[in-house]
């Protein structure tokens, strides 16, 4: 296993009076505006990070409410018309004996979104309070949230495929419900919220920043 050596103990680029490019890692003298290697914009810290995190998170949480109240799928067969919500769909799957699939849908549509809300609130609050506890755990939580958030889209794609596939005139048709739209919006907003979070802030708290934010 290779490793990169620490230069002078473990210090940040900011403490060394430098600013690092988050895209390519190139280091510059602080207050440089654009990266000389990849032309990306340079910012030592995103000072508006938390504001954006809260705004997108709030939007995501608001959109999650109608996503659960209104139907996700509208099913028409010869004999009846049913509307199923996210949780209703999971219950149907359990009744059909598809426990594995029920679990996937439940994890992707209920546990991951709610887990993400909680995790982002915790991360944002801890940075706001300049907490220096559990930095490694918080960093791990941030990585998990970033990685896993997109997987909530599963249910939206299930609805898309079902609605495209099950179009058998009068015998059976499946159409998307309004909840599909609000659920997709909720996932998108939460992803934007996680992306707005500047993970470098987690590691700043235990350091003496003379220049502040």
């Amino acid at each position, binding site marked *: *296993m*290779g*490793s*990169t*050596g*620490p*230069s*002078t103990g*473990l210090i*940040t*680029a*900011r403490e*060394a*009076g*430098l600013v*690092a490019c988050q*895209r*390519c*890692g*190139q*280091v510059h*003298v602080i207050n440089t505006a654009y990266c000389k*290697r*990849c*032309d990306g914009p340079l910012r*030592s810290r995103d000072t508006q990070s938390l504001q954006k995190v809260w705004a997108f998170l709030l939007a995501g949480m608001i959109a999650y409410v109608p996503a659960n109240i209104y139907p996700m799928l509208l099913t028409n067969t010869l004999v009846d018309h049913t509307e199923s919500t996210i949780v209703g769909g999971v219950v149907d*799957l359990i009744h059909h004996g*598809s426990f594995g699939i029920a679990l996937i*849908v439940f994890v992707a549509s209920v546990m991951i979104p709610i887990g993400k809300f909680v995790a982002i609130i915790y991360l944002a609050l801890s940075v706001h309070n300049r907490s220096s506890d559990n930095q*490694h755990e918080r*960093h791990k939580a941030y*990585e998990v949230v970033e990685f896993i*958030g*997109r997987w909530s*889209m*599963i*249910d939206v*794609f299930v*609805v*898309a*495929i*079902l*609605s*495209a*596939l*099950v*179009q*058998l*005139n009068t*015998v*059976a048709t499946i159409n*998307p419900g309004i909840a*599909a*739209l609000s659920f*997709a919006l909720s996932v998108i907003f939460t*992803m934007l919220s996680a*992306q707005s979070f500047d*993970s*470098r802030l987690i*590691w700043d708290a235990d350091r003496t920043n003379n220049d502040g934010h």
Partner: protein
Amino acid sequence: MPQPLPPLDDLVACHQCDTLHVAQDLPENARAYCQRCGAVMMTAQSASIARILSLAMTAFVMLIAAISFPFLSLDANGLHNTTSVIDAVLAFNDGYAFPLAVAVAFFIIVIPLVRLGALIYALGPLARDQHPHAGAKHAFGLAERLRPWSMAEIFIVGVTVALIKVAGLAAVTIGPAFWAFAGVVIVTVLKDQMICRYSIWEALDHQPD
């Protein structure tokens, strides 16, 4: 307490926690992790640019196939319906769900195609030891920025769930596009594993004459 620092070009900072490190040449197939937060900073693989390029081109061709060929077909009570990936997108094409159709089209078709195209454009000349194209840096930056929004692998899992849901209702036949799409997912995952952003940016910056 200012201490003498090595030249700036020898330094590399962790993109996740800003900790400074001195860049070193890695042994083959090694990975370098940030000493503080553990994020992967570099991976060393010989000839990886040529390999990434060939995987990206493979995925691009397979994705075109996945969009064009029939994806799934359904038979029930003498009725038949064949659907392509495009149909799946158009499923939302009525009224209030229209924005969703646009979003799904972007997530499973447009963004994957743009990412692969940008990567091929940026890395093509490098694999042949030539000058990078104009805008190659923007193209690679775009491909990296779009990474979380490219959701082909999630779509495939969604398709599997949908198949099991309709299995009781009707007979489902899997078309060639399904396998092409599954191939795209595998190749894309392999390719993304191989990308070492640090060395690609370095290669894009260092222009051979």
